[in-house]
């Protein structure tokens, strides 16, 4: 087991008075793929934004490579972010730049590499995601799966130590889905980085990840390796992994008693 890259301690965050995260603790080691799962609105994306330093926590801290993220100044934060990649839900490719320029974006912004070297690097990154032949296309000409692969190539452009994936599997057909899944695993192993996958696609992510955290109501409801998770008898995990419609997460939004809402008491009485 290598040393931890990310350490999250007693992390809490709330939008004005609405608590999103309450006291979250996690450690993530280098070279691992970690999944963060949970229902919609359970604070998964907020967690990513806290790690990236986009927002500041109300309590606790996130430490990345021994630096407390929310205490960094602007320049230090930007320096840290150069070593982080983030894959947004729908890729977030720059629509006015070609595939090539998208991948070259960070190299051109942050390095003084000569154009010939940038070209070689970009083609290597695109080759890694199998889209070397598509370098001249515009983002509007790509399918959803291809756009996400390009975005993946873009986020590994500067060989980061950490990549965060925000719902990388949403809205993909089964083939693209497994392509993205295996790419995440392969790139993590090949580049020796850490990957954090926020998702609610249980089956695909259990195939590729090393460790799973379940978030519910702003706390970690369960955690474990994929094997442990599959065998788990915790009601919440069981419901989530097997996709049952009722369980600890109820089907019904909290409401008055059904007969009362329909004003049936009188007739029943």
């Amino acid at each position, binding site marked *: 087991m290598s040393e931890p890259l990310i350490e999250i301690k007693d992390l809490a965050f709330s939008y004005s008075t609405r608590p999103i995260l309450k006291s979250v603790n996690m450690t993530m080691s280098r070279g691992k793929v970690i999944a963060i799962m949970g229902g919609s609105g359970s604070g998964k994306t907020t967690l990513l934004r806290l790690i*990236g330093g*986009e927002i500041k926590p109300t309590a606790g801290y996130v430490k990345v490579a021994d630096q407390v993220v929310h205490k960094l100044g602007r320049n230090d934060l*930007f*320096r840290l*972010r*150069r070593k*982080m*990649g*983030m894959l*947004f*839900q*729908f890729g*977030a*490719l*720059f*629509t*006015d730049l070609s595939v090539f320029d998208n991948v070259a*974006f*960070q190299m051109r*912004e*942050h390095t003084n590499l000569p154009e010939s070297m940038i070209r070689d690097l970009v083609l290597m990154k695109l080759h890694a995601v199998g889209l070397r032949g598509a370098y001249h296309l515009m983002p509007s000409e790509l399918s959803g799966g291809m756009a996400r692969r390009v*975005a993946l190539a873009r986020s590994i452009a500067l060989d980061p130590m950490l990549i965060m994936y925000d719902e990388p599997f949403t809205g993909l057909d089964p083939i693209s889905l497994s392509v993205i899944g295996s790419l995440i695993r392969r790139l993590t192993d090949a580049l020796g980085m850490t990957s954090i996958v926020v998702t609610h696609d249980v089956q695909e992510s259990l195939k590729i990840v090393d460790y799973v955290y379940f978030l519910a109501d702003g706390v970690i409801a369960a955690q474990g390796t994929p094997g442990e998770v599959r065998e788990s008898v915790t009601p919440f995990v069981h419901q989530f992994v097997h996709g049952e419609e009722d369980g600890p997460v109820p089907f019904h939004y909290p409401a008055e008693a059904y007969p009362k809402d329909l004003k049936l008491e009188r007739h029943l009485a």
Partner: protein
Amino acid sequence: MPKRIITSIQAVGHRIIDGIWRLGCAARFFILVLLKSAASFLRFGLVIREVYFVGVLSLIIILVSGLFVGMVLGLQGYETLQKYGSESAVGTLVALSLVRELGPVMSALLFASRAGSAITAEIGLMKATEQLAAMGMMAVDPIARVVAPRFWAGVISMPLLAALFSVMGVFGGYLVAVVFIGVDEGAFWSSMQNAVDFRYDIVNGVIKSCFFGVAVTAIAVFEGFDAPPTAEGVSGATTRTVVTSALAILGLDFVLTSFMFRGVD
């Protein structure tokens, strides 16, 4: 009944407070853009690219409208002036109204609806599709990389477009008055040159259009950056850009005119 009155007063109050809030945000944003502009001057290629989108692509509408406005001025001016037997002054009328007022104002209004709305929509969509957030996560400041170049491109393009509008307008007036109606060509140009002063009229017109350029693009980039990241949010922001720009242009025009032309002439 009184309750309804109270709520409507509250609604008005909310809107006013909200407006003040937004104005403060806009001012802060504007200063932020200015502070982060240095980078975009160092990489002037970015600004040139945007000059193409906001300036060159607005050319057609500016040139054609300028021509038509000038032709109308020529026709109307001739109609009125010939009653007093001074139809040769039509050149003066066309040139002065274009150089002082119509050139800067009309081209700024057209610019707001052509380029301003495009800037807002583009930045708004970049925000809605998380491109700006992605840029931030790549340690690139979206204000320096996306907003500032567009702002400066607009500021550079506006006076040039206004000058082109005025020239096309004068040409349109010339076409109607001299070529079609037959006002004496020499009188047309000489009365114009006698009346239009370079420093007083033309330079002031250019200064006006510089102000309009700053106002329109500042509004456009702010609305884009501030737009709620949804389809309705972006379309609402685009509409607001055009409306606010139009009001700002006309209001500014009055203020600038009262500073520049104090009736000394």
